[in-house]
């Protein structure tokens, strides 16, 4: 019996109400879903913005990390160079101390050598004085010998 009503496009009132109720529910749901969708979309945009922000921050962080790594490497290099220079400095300080010691030794040796030369000069003065005195004495003795004034007879 139902069939003929449907064929005619007719529904019972009760069914109609139920359908209308269903439609209202569906529309309410659809509206809620649409709201939810809008909220989700808004949320999604927010998250997207946050994601973009995070991506930007990540990128910046990556760049910063790279910069920091570069700076670290540079610092390492500088430290190595400083170590090398420090080592060189130590070596030079040691060399300098050695040179200073050598200089002091040389100065001491020079003073000793100068004193020895002066002592030699004084000794030479004494020897020369003695030789002159002995020469005078010898000449005096020879001059006093008899017949020495005329020289040796040939």
């Amino acid at each position, binding site marked *: 019996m139902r069939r003929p009503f449907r064929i005619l496009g007719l529904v019972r009132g009760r069914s109609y109400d139920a359908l209308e109720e269903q439609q209202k529910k569906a529309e309410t749901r659809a509206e809620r879903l649409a709201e939810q969708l809008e909220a989700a979309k808004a949320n999604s945009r927010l998250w997207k913005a946050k994601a973009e922000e995070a991506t930007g921050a990540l990128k910046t962080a990556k760049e910063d990390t790279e910069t920091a790594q570069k700076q670290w490497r540079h610092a390492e290099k500088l430290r190595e160079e400083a170590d090398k220079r420090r080592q060189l400095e130590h070596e030079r300080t040691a060399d300098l101390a050695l040179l200073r010691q050598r200089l002091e030794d040389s100065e001491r040796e020079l003073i000793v050598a100068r*004193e020895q030369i*002066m*002592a030699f000069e004084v*000794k030479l*003065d004494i020897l020369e004085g003695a030789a*002159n005195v002995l020469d005078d004495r010898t000449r005096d003795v020879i001059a006093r010998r008899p017949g020495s004034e005329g020289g040796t007879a040939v």
Partner: protein
Amino acid sequence: MIPAGARSAPPYLTIIVTGRNDDFGGDFNGRFFQALHFNHQQLAAADVTHEFVFVEWRPIDKRPLLASLLADEFAELKSLPLRSYVVDPAYHDALSLNPRLQFQEFIAKNVGLRRARGEFVLTTNTDIYLSRGVIDCLQRRTLEHGVLYRAARHDLRPDRDVSAVDWDLLEDERNCEVVNRIKPPLFTNASGDFLLLDCKTSHRLRGFNEVYRVAKIHIDGNFCLKAHASSVPIVDIGAPVYHVGRGTFHAQKGMYRARPGEAPWGDMRWRKSGVVYDNGDGWGLGLAPERVNDRGTTFLTFDWHAVGPMVDLGRVVSPRQRQERAS
């Protein structure tokens, strides 16, 4: 005058001077007697027990001995403690290494040093006047053993009337022509005019250089170097001594500027600041026979045994060697 040989307690100070009757520098004897009289008076007034030791080196033949003239001059002065030594001129000839040197002043001073009896010995020159400050130091008896004391010599203007010398004349700054300043460490500069040291240390150092007899100039400064190298501190006594005029050396040195080797004091360029010496055991003619005459003058008669070798190069040493030996 208290003659030689008169033994009493050793005095606090022996003053050693040398000379001969040769009129060196003009009126040598008069200048000598005047300074000796002044110094004796001041020391006696300050109650400083002292003696003078005069050494006449190479006395001149046929002239009175200066030692005799000195004895005559001070015969009346009973309080003057004076001992005179006359050295046979043969010693001068035997020791000579430079015929231009007429007077071996520092060997003569060694003769006096060797025979000094005082606790302290001042070797000086005959025409040096002690200052009030020096007399004060001696009076206070604050001198230390093992320290060589030096005094700056103040030269008085030669045009001043010095017929009567007193403190006013000596201390008046207007009368001073030159101050011969002395500086550490050696305090040389006219050091022959004032070298004051205790007798034991003088004997330990064995006096002035007798090894280098080629010059007499700067032998006094060389003694300061010897003292310094022997760890004897040298200090300025803080008071001057006085001398009238600037001295014979100053007056004559210009004559020998072009020919320094011919100077009567020897070549002043000798290496006095680079060497010291170790005198032999017979330093100061310590082995010379002595004979005392009736006037109390002691004669050192000639004996080859008292003369060291003509050349003894091992006794020329560097100051550093000396310091090493001393340490």
